[in-house]
């Protein structure tokens, strides 16, 4: 283990002294993130999320005014570009449209939703908080996050209206300004006015996801920065492979193999070095974007685990490229091509949501797609348990790639004595 560690640390040190590599590992993703931030208006205050036309279905089974207010809100001009709303009455059919990937989610407003909220303030029995169901496509965390944000904002307004009506009527009765028998009707009127005022509010934008009690702001850079970091992580992964073959050509690998060091230790050290370099790269980018852009990445533990899993999978790809290529030059151009291809496929340039189902399926061969799912979930307020699916996906990908690489290394005798 000591020799694996020593070889790995040596490789990190060499990578950090390679100016060209540093430009690609750190400066390029940082500059690109910065540029995309400017393009999307993130730094000029005219930000658009870059996310639009989220397909959402609303099934309104409520006959009251609050249900209608939510429908009106989703159809409002403020959200026109963001969501494409379709009204349906058949709940089962609506769910099927989500299951088949045609829609990001269904909002189901249950029967009696309005009545359960705006009950008579004189009624002593506590009314159960009504549940709006949000049925979503788990492969679209960004869109789901946006829909959830809108709903949370709306429900927050509704709750404010309900409490406001209760307090107002209680005060009016105490001061003798209304009769007890009129309280129910007046309370309902106040509640409806306050609750449905949510429909006219301009405050509903893509922010304030409060699912875990924290205020998390959805930020366009929260999508772009991980996208760029993951894309250039692929560069680092192939860089590690290139270094392995370069060491063979420059004689340091044979020299290692005639020292009392096993070929497994040498290969382990090279992989460990690439892993450390990749992890350092992503953590430096996270730190830099937090410091310079004020970007909120989300739950630190989730970020830590997700980064390590993404680096593991990316290094797996790097090793496979190395096992297939014959020269450092080949690793370089195959690695660059794969970096760009994975960037495109994995959503580093374009949001994959809304892409055809087959495209999203193919994107799953990239660490970028899994990683972006996870980072977006965390940026929207999720925690480690919410990103277990991408983490496990990345780990499985890494394991498969490492096994394939080792078989190829063995067959080609790249690192055998």
């Amino acid at each position, binding site marked *: 283990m000591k*020799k694996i560690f*020593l070889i790995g640390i*040596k490789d990190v*040190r*060499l990578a950090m*002294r*390679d100016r060209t590599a540093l430009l690609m590992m750190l400066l390029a993703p940082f500059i690109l993130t910065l540029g995309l931030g400017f393009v999307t208006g993130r730094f000029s205050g005219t930000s658009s999320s870059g996310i639009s036309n989220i397909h959402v279905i609303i099934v309104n089974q409520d006959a009251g005014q609050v249900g209608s207010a939510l429908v009106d809100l989703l159809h409002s001009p403020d959200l026109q570009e963001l969501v494409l709303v379709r009204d349906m009455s058949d709940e089962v059919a609506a769910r099927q449209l989500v299951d088949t990937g045609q829609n990001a989610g269904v909002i189901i407003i249950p029967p009696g939703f309005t009545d359960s909220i705006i009950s008579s303030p004189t009624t002593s029995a506590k009314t159960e908080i009504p549940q709006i169901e949000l049925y979503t496509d788990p492969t679209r965390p960004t869109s789901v996050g946006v829909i959830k944000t809108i709903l949370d904002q709306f429900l927050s307004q509704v709750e404010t209206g309900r409490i406001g009506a209760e307090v107002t009527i209680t005060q009016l009765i105490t001061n003798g300004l209304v009769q007890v028998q009129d309280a129910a009707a007046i309370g309902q009127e106040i509640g409806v006015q306050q609750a449905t005022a949510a429909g006219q509010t301009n405050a509903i934008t893509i922010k304030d996801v409060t699912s875990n009690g924290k205020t998390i702001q959805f930020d366009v850079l929260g999508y772009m920065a991980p996208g760029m970091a993951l894309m250039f992580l692929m560069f680092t992964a192939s860089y590690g492979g290139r270094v392995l073959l370069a060491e063979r050509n*420059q*004689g*340091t690998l*044979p*020299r*290692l*193999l*005639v*020292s*009392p*060091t*096993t070929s497994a230790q040498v290969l382990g050290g090279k992989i460990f070095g690439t892993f450390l370099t990749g992890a350092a790269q992503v953590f430096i980018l996270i730190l830099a974007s937090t410091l310079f852009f004020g970007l909120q990445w989300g739950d630190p533990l989730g970020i830590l685990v997700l980064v390590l899993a993404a680096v593991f999978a990316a290094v797996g790809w790097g090793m496979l490229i190395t096992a297939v290529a014959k020269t450092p030059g080949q690793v370089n151009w195959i690695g660059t091509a794969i970096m760009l291809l994975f960037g495109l496929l994995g959503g580093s340039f374009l949001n994959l949501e809304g892409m055809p189902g087959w495209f999203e399926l193919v994107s799953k061969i990239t660490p970028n797609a899994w990683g972006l799912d996870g980072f977006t979930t965390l940026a929207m307020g999720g925690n480690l348990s919410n990103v277990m699916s991408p983490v496990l996906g990345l780990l499985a990908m890494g394991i498969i790639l490492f096994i394939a690489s080792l078989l190829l290394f063995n067959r080609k005798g790249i690192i055998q*004595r």
Partner: protein
Amino acid sequence: MTNLLEVKNLVKKYGEYTAVNGISFSIKDGEIFSLLGPNGAGKTTTISVLSTLYTPTSGDASIGGYSVSREPMLVRSLIGVVPQELALYDDLTARENLSFWGQMYGLSGRTLKSRIDEVLEQIGLVEKAGNRIKTYSGGMKRRVNIGVGLLHRPRLLFMDEPTVGIDPQSRRAILDSVKDLNQQGMTVLYTTHYMEEAHELSDRVAIIDHGELIALGTQAELTHQVGENDTLVLHIDEGQDCESLAQAMRTIPSVLFANTSDHEISLITPEAEEILAPAVTKANELGIKIRSVDIKEPNLEAVFLHLTGRALRD
């Protein structure tokens, strides 16, 4: 003295190509043993097999009693290797390189530090130890390359053409350091295609050509094979017909061998002074001007020429 290295019928093939073809020899403890041969003779392949980098196709070798094919890890701790090509990390300093390689040989802590200091002293790079290798001259890099092989005080040091492509001053320093190391008790297997280096350093020499050992012994034993013959070297101008002149020289009765190379004709003869006049006459007849003439005592070059009909540089 006991044998530190024993090689028995060693064969190394790459597909159909046989790089080393059934060589056998041994090296005694404390000896400097040179493997002399032209480029492509199989010297580097032999060292690569003996240093456990490649497995032999057949045959075996043992170092300190351990088989290179069956006990490579035990062999590796006994040997040091100075490869022909520089095998260093350019972006690390000399001290960092030595530290890394020392740790690969199991050195650590104070032992590592003191060995690094000693080696830096030995290779004369104490003051520049903190500079990155890429800022060094070719000769300085060569010295660090050798230093890496010495760190763990190996019993047997393999040096594969360590003076190729360097200036005369660095070459001299390297040859002197090989002699110093040997005086300190280190056994050295030195490969070269420079006859002068093998002549200066070696207790015994093996001459290798086309993967086969064609001669082995002390220098006296080897030169005895060519008897008391001298080598007469005729230097002619560029563009002159070397081969025609060599043909003409072969007609002189006391010329045993005539070989051409790089505007030179080497003649092996028992009486160099006596054939000088007829040689000049033959050259004049062909209209070829002889620029200068060297007469050499019997040496390893002559042995190689005698055994192969070619010069070492061919």
